[in-house]
């Protein structure tokens, strides 16, 4: 090997990301500035959401040197009122790549908190300035760090650290990075505006490099219910995930050492007393329902060994051969290996087989997945052509693949549990839109939970018409997991659904001032591209969006016809007050009269009809 000219070096994650920063959205100063803003703002909002705190997020972008032309260094600061980060975690959280806490199956804006570290890394390589992190989890003392990343070693370098007293809880992150605000500004402003729209429970402030300030005070004071972490849905699972789930549920025969014996004694309430074998067994069967699994296994082993605690402490279990029904152990006292037959008729035999071979397939399905009951599990095993009582510990690789495939294909599973989703809710969406657009007509709808490929999703939609909306034609705001999707809208499923609707059927002109807000939340949004700006047109999602839009359009149509009626009445009144006096004037001269006829009462009558 030493003669080989090629050398294989392991690179650190920091190094990897440094070399592939384009992937994470840091390809040029314009895009990088925008991506950095997004990462920090989304982290701030996620942190507050998870802690159940109404977010108050402050974002500022300041040029280091106003006079310099773009691209140039900017200081980007994002401050929140969230739970902060424990001082001891800060260096690792902000000074290493791939250190995060956002794991688990539930909806969040970002996935692993990687983006923020990428932004810090990008800032460091373009300006060679440290990231400044100030955190106060308790609102009393604040830790301030200045950190640099050691890219090769993927380790934080603490440049400065101090602690001081403060009065506000929260986290502030400030980086210096090369950016191009003149090009990224519009996009960032759009992002902030739309984020405020979809986060009406947050106060968001943005000060841009030109000194312009955007400020949106929270419109609603209730937070959407936080999502919960849940078991996976069978449709959203692959072989590797199943293997891991099995390993999690796999249960080894516990080592029967002194510590374990103490535990058994304690659970049996025999801390002090020393009972013989049969007394122990009797006690155990009485207390069986309250015993922990470890203890039950030990008791089961003891039942075959027919030993008390003292004898038990002098042996070591070597093997449990369930297939041949043999239990082998090493007797320290006798210094020999002993094997005894296991009686399959014994009530403890089952306990041991369960432990060694893992649970049955039925049990695995019903306990490890969401929304699979006994009946469904049985039906599924028939479908998959697997034995319901098959122990998962004994499954071959082939059987695993078969299981995984069948889980994808079986159609009788209930749709995924949406409790891991956190839609905004109709009321907050409505209030937000009301505040933002001040329309004449506003309606919102939240569809019931649905799923595509095992991932639950919920579509929320709002429609606003007229009022202060001055646009010609419709404006569509798209959101996914409370993140605005700003660009690349051409092939987006929402746009597809909106464009396919025939507005004339709903008494809406094509140039009517219309705003449509669409929010899809899911544990996994099916983005079409790496840019995460458009959602793929999965039929299930398309259907939900279409139903939502049709519902809203019908409401709008009702409004339009009512309004059309009112407008007609108004037009009518206007026409009468214009023409009747003219008619009176003309016919007076024509009739050769001096005084005009008393037509005023007619106009009054008209007014009454109108009311």
């Amino acid at each position, binding site marked *: 090997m030493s003669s080989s000219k090629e050398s294989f070096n392991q690179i650190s994650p920091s190094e990897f990301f440094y070399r592939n920063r384009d992937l994470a959205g840091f390809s040029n100063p314009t895009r990088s500035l925008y991506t950095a803003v997004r990462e920090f703002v989304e982290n701030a909002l996620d942190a507050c959401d998870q802690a159940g705190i109404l977010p108050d997020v402050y974002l500022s972008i300041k040029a280091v040197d106003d006079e310099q032309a773009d691209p140039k260094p900017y200081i980007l600061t994002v401050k929140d009122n969230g739970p902060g980060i424990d001082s001891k975690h800060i260096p690792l959280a902000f000074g290493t790549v791939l250190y995060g806490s956002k794991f688990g199956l539930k909806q969040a804006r970002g996935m692993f908190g990687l983006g923020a570290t990428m932004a810090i890394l990008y800032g460091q390589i373009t300006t060679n300035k440290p990231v400044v992190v100030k955190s106060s989890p308790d609102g009393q003392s604040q830790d301030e760090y200045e950190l640099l990343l050691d890219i090769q070693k993927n380790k934080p370098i603490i440049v400065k650290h101090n602690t001081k007293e403060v009065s506000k809880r929260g986290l502030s992150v400030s980086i210096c990075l090369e950016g191009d605000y003149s090009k990224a500004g519009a996009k960032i402003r759009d992002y902030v505006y739309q984020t405020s729209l979809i986060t009406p429970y947050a106060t968001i402030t943005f000060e841009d490099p030109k000194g312009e300030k955007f400020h949106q005070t929270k419109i609603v004071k209730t937070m959407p219910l936080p999502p919960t972490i849940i078991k996976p849905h069978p449709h959203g699972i692959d072989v590797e995930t199943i293997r891991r789930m099995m390993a999690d549920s796999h249960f080894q025969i516990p080592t029967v050492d002194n510590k374990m014996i103490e535990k058994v004694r304690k659970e049996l309430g025999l801390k002090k007393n020393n009972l013989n074998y049969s007394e122990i067994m009797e006690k155990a069967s009485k207390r069986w329902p309250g015993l922990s699994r470890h203890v039950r296994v030990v008791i089961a082993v003891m039942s075959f060994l027919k030993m008390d605690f003292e004898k038990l402490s002098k042996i070591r279990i070597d093997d449990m051969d369930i297939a041949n029904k043999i239990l082998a152990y090493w007797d320290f006292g006798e210094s020999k290996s002993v094997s005894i037959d296991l009686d399959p008729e014994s009530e403890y035999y089952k306990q041991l087989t369960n432990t060694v071979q893992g649970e049955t397939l039925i049990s695995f399905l019903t306990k490890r997945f969401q929304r699979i009951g006994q009946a469904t599990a049985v039906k599924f095993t028939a479908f998959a052509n697997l034995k319901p009582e098959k122990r998962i510990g004994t499954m071959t690789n082939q059987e695993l693949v078969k299981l995984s495939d069948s889980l994808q294909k079986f159609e009788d599973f209930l749709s995924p549990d949406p409790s891991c989703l956190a839609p905004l809710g109709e009321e907050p969406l409505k209030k937000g839109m009301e505040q933002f657009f001040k329309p004449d007509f506003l309606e919102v709808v939240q569809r019931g939970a649905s799923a595509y490929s095992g991932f639950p999703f919920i579509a929320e939609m709002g429609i606003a018409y007229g009022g202060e909306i001055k646009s010609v034609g419709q404006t569509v705001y798209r959101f996914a997991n409370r993140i605005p999707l700003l660009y690349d809208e051409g092939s987006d499923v929402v746009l597809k659904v909106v464009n396919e609707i025939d507005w004339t059927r709903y008494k809406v002109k094509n140039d009517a001032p219309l705003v449509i807000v669409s929010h899809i939340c899911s544990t996994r949004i099916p983005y079409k591209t790496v840019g995460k700006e458009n959602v793929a047109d999965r039929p299930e999602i398309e259907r939900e969006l279409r139903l939502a839009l049709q519902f809203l359009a019908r409401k709008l149509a009702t409004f339009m016809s009512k309004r059309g009626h009112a407008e007609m009445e108004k037009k009518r009144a206007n026409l009468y007050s*214009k023409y009747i006096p003219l008619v*009176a004037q003309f*016919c007076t*001269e024509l*009739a050769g009269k001096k005084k005009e006829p008393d037509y005023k*009462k007619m106009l009054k009558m008209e007014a009454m009809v109108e009311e």
Partner: protein
Amino acid sequence: MKNKSKKISKTSEERRESLARLLQEQGLKIYSELDRGEFPKFSVPSRSVSNIVYDKKLRQYVLGNTASIRSARNMSQLRSFAQLIWLAFFANRLVQEKKSSTLRDIYYSSQAFSIDFEDQPESDNIIVDLEAVLARPREDLHIFPEERSSVFGDLTIEYTVPGYEGKRTNLSDHPDGYLIGPSLSSAELVDTSAELVIAIEKGGLFTRFVEEKIDKKFKAIIVDTAGQAPRATRYLLKRLHNEMGLPVVILTDGDVYGEHIAMVIKSGSANAAHLRELTVPDAKWIGVWATDIEKYKLPTIPMTESDIKRIYDLQKDPRYQEGIWKKELEVFLKIKRKAELEAFSKYGLTNITDKYLPEKLEIAKSL
């Protein structure tokens, strides 16, 4: 002669007065409806094709009994209702002040009274509505189209237009003839030595006829209809026939359109089915007939597709079911050729006046 003119003068004055009464009646009706707090309305005879019927007795198209109510209550009719009452009001002023106006004038005048017509066709249409309501031609209301035709011959008229009241003119005083305009239309017809009216389709021939002194040779008043006769021209022809007792003969190109020009003078057009004042049922078409084309060996032009289609259309018209009207159409269809009045020039410029006209006038006596 003096006696006759006085009687005529009274006729013209009577017409004006009855129109004034008619307008006032309409005004009073609407006035009292408004005063009672009711929505005023007009009954407007329907001018749709289904309501236009041929009256054999009157020998012209007339409107049937269908009428629509135009009410101020109906929002979609309110505007046109107001337009109609405005037009009546404006026409009343014109009549009272003896002023004349054109169709285009009406369109613009409306704007001074906050009555808005979208375009001239809209105002033209309202004028026809008012004609139908009053059963009077717009010329009576002193509203004239732009198109003008001419008249020449020994006819003395007395103007009634302001500034010319009582002034008399003889229509043979100017060799180009006199425009048949508002002042001539409203003038009293005083005296004539003529015994015949010759209506001719083309201005060129009209001039030839004046030059050849046809007015003297045949004791005729010559009228240039300038193609399809304008209503003022038809109105004059009618007056010459009714008030002065002159027979009317018509000379047109030898084609289906010429034949129909003659027919419109004789029995009106479907467009003016709501009016009864514009026809001369006794007028005679003397040429150029289809049979004349062969008889006089006139140079011809082949008919076009639309010419032939027009023949088929007219053959369905009740007025073309008998006499020369029917016969000539058939011949046109057979020869599929047509000849213009100028075709006679092949045999010399005066051939038409020297030879053709006398022969045709002779034949006319037996029509």
